[in-house]
């Protein structure tokens, strides 16, 4: 229950807390009021009882001393008749032996009967209280004459009105407190709801379901609270900055592809230029030996192979340029394309390329980001490895998904390069964005990056979790 309470809206929690505090305050205040009322009532009752008993004691002292039954009765009877308010219900007077001399109701306390029946639960006037809930309380007091106790008097007082007064006060307090608590809780709810409206607005626009933050319309800003308005304005600025950053990243990634191609351009130019010499020689041969069909056929085959190679290179370049993020899924052809694009680079640098594709299932991964990841890492490896060095590319399936390992015999990743690839730390300016883009793309696919550098060889291991079974 308490755990669930924490998930309740803050407006409701504040209202409930207000109500709880009001209830506590109400209880404390009510207790104080009732206690004061009780003290006042008791003081009044004790004063009344004292005056009644003392008045009677003065009148009854001599009669009690002489055991004058009639005079005691007559005095009690007249006092009862004269008593205002009817608080005195019953009075009994006994002699020094505890035997009743007379009572206002002789049927209840006959002459000579023991007074103990009435005195047992009676209290002295200074102790009498209406706080026990009894509607009738008994008071007892000694009757003294010249310092000598000549008897005792027991009086029953009607305190129904005082008890009712307490009950009425308690009910009034309860009702009043309940009403005030309800009103304040409701008011608290409304005030807090109003105060927290901009905060809720902020929370809503921050993207509660994991979405991207989006700006809050200016019209929804609070007019009265400049602090909150400034907060919301700052939030809008922040949301705009996040959008701008995402857009910049998107453009950067787009550009990175051209950068990759740019870096490959000289190698690719060789790929195009080299066959061109052979093709021109072939055309010269065809012209020179046009009458020799077997020479023409051989030359035409040569031209055909050269043109096909050129076509493949052009297709791969165009493919890489056109690649978009929502495109098709990864297939074995993508690895062939990558090899076609990258291999001339290693050839140009005299490096040994170990290319191993050992996958039957491409895991339903998207083609474009995987190609970008692999190409960036391969270009990085080719740059890192020395002339005549080694560059390895291995792709295989593991229990977690697709694992791509790019190896080189370079000096290993520098500190800043490792930070860009392995951490979220802000990239230092001037270091390029290739490795950071790899990290972002791997993160976007839910994958992990590991780095292993030992024995003059650096391995970058990318594990991409499969999205579903798909044959390569």
């Amino acid at each position: 229950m308490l755990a669930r309470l924490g998930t309740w809206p803050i407006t409701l929690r504040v209202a409930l807390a207000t109500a709880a505090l009001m209830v506590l305050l109400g209880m404390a205040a009510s207790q104080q009021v009732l206690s004061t009322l009780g003290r006042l009532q008791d003081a009044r009752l004790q004063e009344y009882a004292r005056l009644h008993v003392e008045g009677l004691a003065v009148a009854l002292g001599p009669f009690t001393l002489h055991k004058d039954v009639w005079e005691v009765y007559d005095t009690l009877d007249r006092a009862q008749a004269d008593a205002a308010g009817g608080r005195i219900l019953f009075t009994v007077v006994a002699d020094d032996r505890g035997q009743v001399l007379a009572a206002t109701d002789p049927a209840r306390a006959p002459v000579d009967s023991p007074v103990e029946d009435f005195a047992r639960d009676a209290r002295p006037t200074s102790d009498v209280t209406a706080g026990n809930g009894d509607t009738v309380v008994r008071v007892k007091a000694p009757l003294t004459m010249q310092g000598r106790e000549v008897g005792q008097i027991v009086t029953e007082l009607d305190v129904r009105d005082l008890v009712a007064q307490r009950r009425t006060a308690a009910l009034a307090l309860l009702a009043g407190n309940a009403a005030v608590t309800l009103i304040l809780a409701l008011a608290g709810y409304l005030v807090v709801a109003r105060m927290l409206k901009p905060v809720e607005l902020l929370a809503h626009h921050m993207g509660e379901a994991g979405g991207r933050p989006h700006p809050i319309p200016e019209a929804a800003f609070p007019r009265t609270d400049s602090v909150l308005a400034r907060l919301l304005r700052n939030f809008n600025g922040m949301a705009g900055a996040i959008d701008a950053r995402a857009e910049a990243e998107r453009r950067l990634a787009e550009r990175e592809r051209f950068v990759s191609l740019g870096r490959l351009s000289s190698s690719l130019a060789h790929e195009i230029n080299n066959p061109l010499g052979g093709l021109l020689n072939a055309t010269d041969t065809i012209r020179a030996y046009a009458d020799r069909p077997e020479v023409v056929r051989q030359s035409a085959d040569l031209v055909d192979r050269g043109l096909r190679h050129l076509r493949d290179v052009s297709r791969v370049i165009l493919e890489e340029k056109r690649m978009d993020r929502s495109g098709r899924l990864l297939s074995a052809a993508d690895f062939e394309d990558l090899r076609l694009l990258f291999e001339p680079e290693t050839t140009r640098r005299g490096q040994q390329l170990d290319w191993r594709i050992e996958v039957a299932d491409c895991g339903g991964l998207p083609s474009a980001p995987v190609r970008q990841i692999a190409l960036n890492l391969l270009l990085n490896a080719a740059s890192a490895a020395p002339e005549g060095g080694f560059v390895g590319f291995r792709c295989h399936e593991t229990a977690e998904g697709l694992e791509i390992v790019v190896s080189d015999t370079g000096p290993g990743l520098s500190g800043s390069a490792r930070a860009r690839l392995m951490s979220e730390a802000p990239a230092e300016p001037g270091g390029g964005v290739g490795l950071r883009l790899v990290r972002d793309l791997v993160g976007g696919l839910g994958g992990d990056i590991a780095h292993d550098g030992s024995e003059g060889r650096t391995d970058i291991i990318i594990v991409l979790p499969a999205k579903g079974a798909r044959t390569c």
Partner: protein
Amino acid sequence: MNRRGFIAGTGAALGLPGIVRAEAAFRLGLTPVFLDNDAAVIDRLRTALSASMAAPVELIQRRTYQEITATILDGSVDAAWICGYPFLQHRDRLTLLGVPVWRGQPRYQSYLIVRRDDPATGLADLRGHVHAFSDPDSNSGYLVTASDLARMGTGPEQFLSRSVFTYGHRNVVRAVAGGLTRSGSVDGYVWETLARVEPALTRGTRIVTRSEWLGFPPFAARADRAAEARVVRFGQALQGLDASPAGRAALDLLLLDRVEAGDVTLFDGIAARMAEIAGG
């Protein structure tokens, strides 16, 4: 010389005409019958007697019969309305000035009363209970019941658990009606009068037995002053009360017919009961 004579004489000697002309009030002692707390009745009686005597009359009240008897004997009052019992107790020193006539005769009865719902049918049923008497010197409020007990071979101390003296017949009715005592001895005239003027009080009681008719409480004066003009004039005023409107009004309030000269033989019944107690 008594006190008033002294004051009058001193006043004359000092030349105080107001005091000289003002005749000393005639002082009448009253036993607390039923009228002890009825200021209107007392005032009406005083006014009527003053008018009849053509002299101011002062009414003196005391709590007990004994006190009033003492005041008449020591001369503190000039005359008193007393009970037949103390009248007979001091018969040799007192003289009769008049006897009220109630319901056509100068007699009344003593009632033995209990609470309205009490099952007692006679005095014998009240053994061991608390009983209210009016006054130890009252005929109807004590002597009758005491002598009845004497006839039963017992007395109040032995027969009753406790005797409560209320010093007033009305108080006896209150004691019984209020439940303080189970039973009471009360003046029949007072009970009947209360039944007229305060029916709520007597309604709480029930008459168990009535005594024989006995001499009504008389007005008496000291025998040695019977010939004094003031006393004689007071006796005449009493017996002529019914002749004046004021006197008639006072008698009406007291529910009495008139006051007659009376005769000591009226009290023979009381004397007989006194003898029974003395004999017991």
